[in-house]
């Protein structure tokens, strides 16, 4: 278990007559467990929650050993303090939203009030589950799970069946809760978009095996895994803060660098997740005047990954630890004579930056 990890997992089970094994360390924040349907995601979630008992292996969460079948006698804790929100919110239909949340809650009243405020569920408390919309029901299901103060929260495709706007709301909520409550979240999904929007780290699962792991950017940077995820080019995910407005553009800050992007009406101070595709970044050895491209970010070449006809250049931005990936042709690379450590300017058109999601404002006090 690394210093950062909050859970160590190495479990085996039988899937379609074959043995499957998932071994990984879980890090704080939101971790997306992504894979196609039938890859073993839900089975793994049920094993971790203790709902599927016939698994072997090892599962340690914080300081608690929850599963260790090799121990004598074998350890298999039934009460695990692992929250689960399924595709079906499964709100208890005969009680109000407030009672649904209160039934398993271990939070103090003031903690619950903060949770309701952060999640925007105060107005739903007196309603019966059947009167809620799909998005509201998922929101309540997540709040209900959080009120039990889980040591780990597993969300099993919680956005299935929601329209894009509601999905964004739920993804923003997941991210906000994970970071404000410091509860690690395992987000199970087969949607690349959900991983890009909400996750800090990613685990790619296929046929019951974890085939890639790391930060979302690391997983996306691997051409093989990017291809498995259906991405046709590398790219970079960035978290930006809106610092102002200028000539119908948003001025954002990414790790001390200024980035202009299209103005979608986001308020100053808003936190945005942005994605820039490698093919949308051009490189220049010096800052250019009289050019339509507004963003010229200085950095140094940190890696050159040669492809068949073009190269993937990783640039470490000045003043920060952020990196951007740029795909340029071999011909351009040769013409520029690029070498590791060279200073370059990343040229990014404001309209090429895709705003994925705006996170809600975070409360000043973290949830306990």
């Amino acid at each position, binding site marked *: 278990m690394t210093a950062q990890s909050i859970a160590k997992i190495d479990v085996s089970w039988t899937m379609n007559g074959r043995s499957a094994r998932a071994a990984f360390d879980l890090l704080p924040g939101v971790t997306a467990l992504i894979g196609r349907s039938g890859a073993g995601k839900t089975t793994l979630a049920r094993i971790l929650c203790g709902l599927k008992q016939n698994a072997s292996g090892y599962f340690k969460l914080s300081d608690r050993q929850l599963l260790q079948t090799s121990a004598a006698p074998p350890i298999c804790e039934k009460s695990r303090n692992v929250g689960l929100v*399924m595709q079906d919110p*499964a709100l208890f239909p005969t009680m109000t939203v407030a009672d649904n949340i209160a039934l398993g809650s271990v939070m103090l009243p003031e903690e619950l009030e903060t949770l309701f405020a952060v999640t925007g569920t105060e107005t739903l408390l007196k309603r019966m589950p*059947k009167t809620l919309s799909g998005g509201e029901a998922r929101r309540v299901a997540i709040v209900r*799970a959080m009120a039990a103060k889980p040591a780990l929260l597993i969300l099993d495709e919680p956005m299935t069946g929601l329209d894009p706007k509601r999905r964004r709301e739920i993804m923003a909520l997941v991210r906000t809760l994970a970071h404000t409550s410091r509860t690690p979240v395992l987000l199970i999904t087969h949607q690349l978009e959900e991983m890009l929007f909400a996750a800090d780290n990613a685990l790619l699962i296929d046929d019951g095996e974890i085939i890639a792991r790391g930060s979302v950017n690391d997983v996306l940077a691997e051409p093989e895994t990017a291809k498995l995820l259906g991405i046709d080019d590398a790219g970079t995910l960035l978290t930006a803060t809106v610092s102002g407005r200028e000539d119908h553009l948003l001025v954002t800050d990414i790790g001390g660098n200024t980035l202009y992007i299209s103005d979608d009406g986001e308020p100053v101070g808003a936190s945005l997740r942005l994605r820039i595709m490698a093919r949308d970044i051009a490189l220049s050895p010096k800052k250019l005047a009289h050019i339509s491209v507004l963003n010229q970010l200085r950095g140094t070449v940190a890696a050159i990954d040669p492809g068949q006809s073009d190269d993937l250049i990783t640039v470490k931005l000045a003043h920060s630890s952020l990196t951007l990936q740029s795909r340029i042709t071999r011909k351009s690379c040769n013409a520029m004579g690029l070498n590791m450590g060279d200073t370059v300017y990343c040229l990014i058109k404001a309209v090429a930056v895709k705003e994925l999601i705006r996170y809600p404002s975070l409360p000043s006090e973290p949830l306990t």
Partner: protein
Amino acid sequence: MLSAVEIEALGLSFKVALTATFVALPFAIAVAYWLARTEFRGKIFVDTLVHIPLVVPPVVVGYVLLISLAPTSGFGLWLAEMGLSPAFKWQGAAIASGVMAFPLMVRSIRQAFEAEAKEYAEVAETLSIARWTQFRRISLPLAYTGILSGAVLGFARAIGEFGATITFAANIPGLTQTLPLALYSAAQAPGGEAAATRLALLCLIPALASLFASEWLFRRARRQQGADQ
């Protein structure tokens, strides 16, 4: 119009059937929940045992009750010494009716518990909600129409009970003579056809009403479960 004996039989029938239903109901709920939610070795034998009154002649059930609870047995003697002997009393008729109604109640209530979406129990497990609280706050309210349906069905069965009652509680007018027993006596008596017809109609009305109510509740429960899931 009804005679005094018939009115007495009608009143006694309701008293016996209502007592049988209310006493048997908590046991039926507990057994139904146990069978619906638990897998254990020997479950098939428990299941069979619960359903025995459905398949054996009611006289057999009455006879078993008689030899178990009448003062001829050790337990029956102890009950008699405590002044609680039910044999040949209206309480005996209620016990016989309750035993006969029990499997029907269990079947109906068990269906209601089994129809509850498994996600509720799983979510409750992950929320560390105690089993008793799960039962009381989640399963019981969800199954209430099924429980009502089972209770009404049990009442219908209890009010029409004959074989076990006559064997265990006998056919004593004013004491243990319920509607079916009064009908039997009237049918046996010379010139009792008119009384027997009246009593037969009296037997039919609550039975049909109960069956109708039970079916209506069952359909409502199914609709509700469909809407909830």
